[in-house]
C-alpha cells in the first residue's frame, strides 16, 4: 500500500515536472472573446457573423491548441464603452478569457484596449477604425488588424483626389472615429493640393441627412466625404441620390463602407461608389473558397471585418502554438514577429505599434447590369500597398515604436 502511494506520488511529481516544458495554458483552456455590436447601427459590420468567422478559424485550426480545447465566447457591447468595459472586466477577471477581439466602434475599442493593457491581456481590434489604437494609446499587447482611418483616407481619398476631386465637404459622425477619419482624409486631401471647404457633425444613428446634405450641396465642394459608417452612411447615400446631389455633379466618398452595407443599400443606389476594403471574396481561388464556406454558414459573403476576425483568431492560435503557452508577453512577442499569411493577408507584418500592415484594395461598386451574381458587387480597381495605406509605426506617435 505504502509502495503504491510512493510510486503514485513519484509519477505525479514527474508528470508535474514535465508539464511546464510541454505546455502552459492557463486554466487548461484557450478562451477567445468576440465583443462587438450585435444589435445597433454597426451590427452588420461584423456582428454575430464575426463570431461565426472566429468559430471557422478555430475549426480550421483543428479545434485544439497545445492539446487544450479552444472556446469562443461572444457578447454585444451595444456601442457603449461602459458596457464594453464591464464585459471585458468580467471576461478577464472571472471567465478566464485570454484575449478579446473584434471591438467594432472606436470608442469601445479604446476603452477595452485600455483595460487589456492594465490587465496584461492581448486584444486584437478588427472592427474599429481609429489610428489612436496604434498611436498615442497603443498597447504592447494591443493589435489592430483589418483597417484603420489612415488606410481609408489614403485609399478612397487618394483615388478621388487623383481624379480631380480637390475640394471636400465632410459629413462626420460626431465621435472619435468620425473626427479621426475626417482629420486624416482632410490632411491627405490638403497634402495633395486639395482643400476642405467645410464640414458638419451629425449625431450617431441619425436617420435623416437631408439637412446636412443641403449644406454640403450649398458648399459647392466637388466631393462630399462621408466620415461615418454602417447604416448612417447607407442612409446618407440613399438620400443624396434622392436630392440629386450626384446627378448635379458632386461626388460622394463613402470613406468607410463594406460589402455588408453595399448589399444592404443595393447595387442600384450604391453603383459607382469608390471604397477601400482589405478583403474581397471574389479575388482569387483561395478567397472564393473561403467566401463560399462562409456563405454556406451564414447566407452572406464576408466583408473585411469578418474575414479579418478570422485571420486574427487564426494568427493568435498560431502564436500560442508556436510559443507553447498562452502567457501574454510571449504570445504578444510572437504576434509581433510572425508574418501573417492566410486567406485575408499575404506577407502581412506587425509593426512595433501593433498595426498589422498588409495590402488593401480600392474597389468600385458595379452597375446592377454588370453583376454576375447576388454578391458580385466589386470591381477591384487598384491595390493600396500596405506601406502606403498604414502609418509608418515610427511616425505613429506610439511611444513603443519611437526609438
Amino acid at each position, binding site marked *: 500500500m505504502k509502495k503504491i502511494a510512493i510510486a503514485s506520488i513519484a509519477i505525479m511529481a514527474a508528470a508535474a515536472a514535465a508539464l511546464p516544458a510541454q505546455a502552459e495554458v492557463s486554466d487548461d483552456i484557450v478562451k477567445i472573446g468576440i465583443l462587438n455590436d450585435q444589435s445597433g447601427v454597426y451590427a452588420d459590420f461584423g456582428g454575430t457573423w464575426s463570431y461565426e468567422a472566429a468559430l471557422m478559424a478555430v475549426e480550421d485550426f483543428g479545434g485544439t491548441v497545445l492539446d487544450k480545447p479552444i472556446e469562443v465566447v461572444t457578447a454585444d457591447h451595444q456601442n457603449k464603452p461602459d458596457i464594453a468595459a464591464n464585459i471585458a472586466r468580467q471576461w478577464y477577471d472571472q471567465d478566464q478569457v485570454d484575449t478579446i477581439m473584434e471591438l467594432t466602434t472606436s470608442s469601445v475599442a479604446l476603452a477595452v484596449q485600455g483595460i487589456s493593457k492594465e490587465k496584461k491581456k492581448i486584444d486584437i481590434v478588427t472592427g474599429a477604425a481609429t489610428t489612436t489604437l496604434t498611436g498615442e494609446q497603443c498597447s504592447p499587447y494591443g493589435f489592430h488588424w483589418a483597417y484603420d482611418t489612415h488606410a481609408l483616407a489614403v485609399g478612397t481619398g487618394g483615388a478621388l483626389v487623383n481624379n480631380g476631386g480637390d475640394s471636400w465637404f465632410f459629413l462626420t459622425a460626431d465621435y472619435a472615429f468620425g473626427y479621426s477619419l475626417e482629420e486624416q482624409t482632410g490632411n491627405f486631401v490638403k497634402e495633395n493640393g486639395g482643400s476642405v471647404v467645410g464640414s458638419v457633425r451629425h449625431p450617431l444613428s441619425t436617420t435623416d441627412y437631408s439637412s446636412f446634405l*443641403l449644406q454640403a450641396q450649398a458648399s459647392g465642394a466637388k466631393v462630399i466625404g462621408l466620415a461615418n459608417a454602417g*447604416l448612417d452612411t447607407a442612409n446618407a447615400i440613399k438620400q443624396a441620390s434622392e436630392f440629386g446631389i450626384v446627378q448635379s455633379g458632386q461626388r460622394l466618398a463613402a470613406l468607410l463602407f463594406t460589402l455588408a452595407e453595399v448589399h444592404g443599400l443595393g447595387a442600384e443606389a450604391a453603383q459607382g461608389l469608390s471604397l477601400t476594403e482589405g478583403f474581397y471574396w471574389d479575388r482569387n481561388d483561395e478567397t472564393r473558397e473561403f467566401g463560399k464556406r462562409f456563405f454556406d454558414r451564414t447566407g452572406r459573403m464576408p466583408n473585411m471585418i469578418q474575414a479579418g476576425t478570422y485571420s486574427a483568431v487564426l494568427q493568435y492560435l498560431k502564436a500560442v502554438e508556436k510559443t507553447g503557452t498562452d502567457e501574454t508577453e510571449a504570445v504578444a512577442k510572437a504576434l509581433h514577429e510572425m508574418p501573417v499569411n492566410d486567406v485575408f493577408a499575404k506577407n502581412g507584418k506587425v509593426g512595433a505599434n501593433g498595426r498589422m500592415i498588409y495590402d488593401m484594395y480600392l474597389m468600385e461598386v458595379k452597375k446592377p447590369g454588370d453583376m454576375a451574381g447576388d454578391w458580385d458587387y466589386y470591381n477591384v480597381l487598384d491595390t493600396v500597398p500596405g506601406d502606403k495605406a498604414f502609418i509608418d509605426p515610427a511616425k505613429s506617435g506610439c511611444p513603443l515604436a519611437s526609438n
Partner: protein
Amino acid sequence: MMMIFGIPIQAFLGQLLIGLINGSFYAMLSLGLAIIFGLLRVINFAHGAQYMMGAFVGFLLLSWIGINYWLALLVAPVIVGITGIVIERFALRRLYNLDHLYGLLFTFGLALVIEGGFRYVYGSSGQPYATPDILSGGVNLGFMYLPIYRGWVVVASLIVCIGTWLLIEKTKLGAYLRAATENPTLVQSFGINVPFLLTLTYGLGTALAALAGIMAAPIYQVSPLMGSNLVIVVFAIVVVGGMGSIMGAIVTGYMLGILEGLTKVFYPEASNIVIFVIMAIVLLVRPAGLFGRDV
C-alpha cells in the same frame, strides 16, 4: 444676398422645408401614439417597431409577390393593423385596469422582441426600397432641389392627419370612441360594444404607424432599427403637445420637425437632443403640454 441668422435666406428656406418634411413623419407617428394614449391610456412603446413593420411588410410584399408601392400603402397598414388587433385582444386588454406602467413595459418589451426578430433575420444595415417611378426625380424650387417624393410625403401626411382628426372629433364613431374612454360603463349600457371599439382603436393606431413606415421606406433604409430611435422622439412630441391631445400631437409634430431641422444648421451636434430640451422646458412651464387640458 439676404441673410437670416448668418445663413443665406435660400439655405434657410431649404432647411425650413426639410424640417416640414421630417415633421410630417413626426406628426403621423405622434398622431397614432396620441390616439392610443388618449383613448386607451396605454403608452405604446411598440409604435416604433410597428412603424418599422410597416416598412418591412411593404418591402416583403414587393420582393415576394411584387405588390407595388401604391397597393402596399393600403395593404401594409392593414396587415400591421391586424397584428395590432391581435396584440390588443390577447394581451394589452388585460393590462387596462393596472397602472400605466404595465402597458408601457409590455409594449416596450414587445418592441424589443419584434426588432430583435427582424434584426436576426435581416441584419441591421437595411434593405433597399425604390421610390415609385412616378414620384422619382425632383423639381428645382430655386432655393432648393425638392425630391418629388418628399413633397408627396408632406401632402399625404397632411391628408392623413386631418382625416384622422376629423374621424375622431367630427364623426359618430369618433364620438363613441371618445365617450367610451370618458365613461365606458355608461356607453356600454347604451348597447355599444366598448371592448370592440378599443380593439379597433389600437388597430387604427398601429395602422397609422405602419402607414408612416411604408411612406418612409423609399427615403430611409428599411432597417429593423429604423423605429427604435424615432419612438423616443415621437413620445417626446406627444408629451410636448399634451398627452392624448390629437391636434396637439399633429401641430407639435410639424413644429418640432422644423425646429430640429433648423438646429441641424445652427448647431448640428445638438440636433438629436433639441426636442428633449423643449420637452423639459414645457414640462416645467406647462406640465399638461402645449395643447393639453390642465388636470
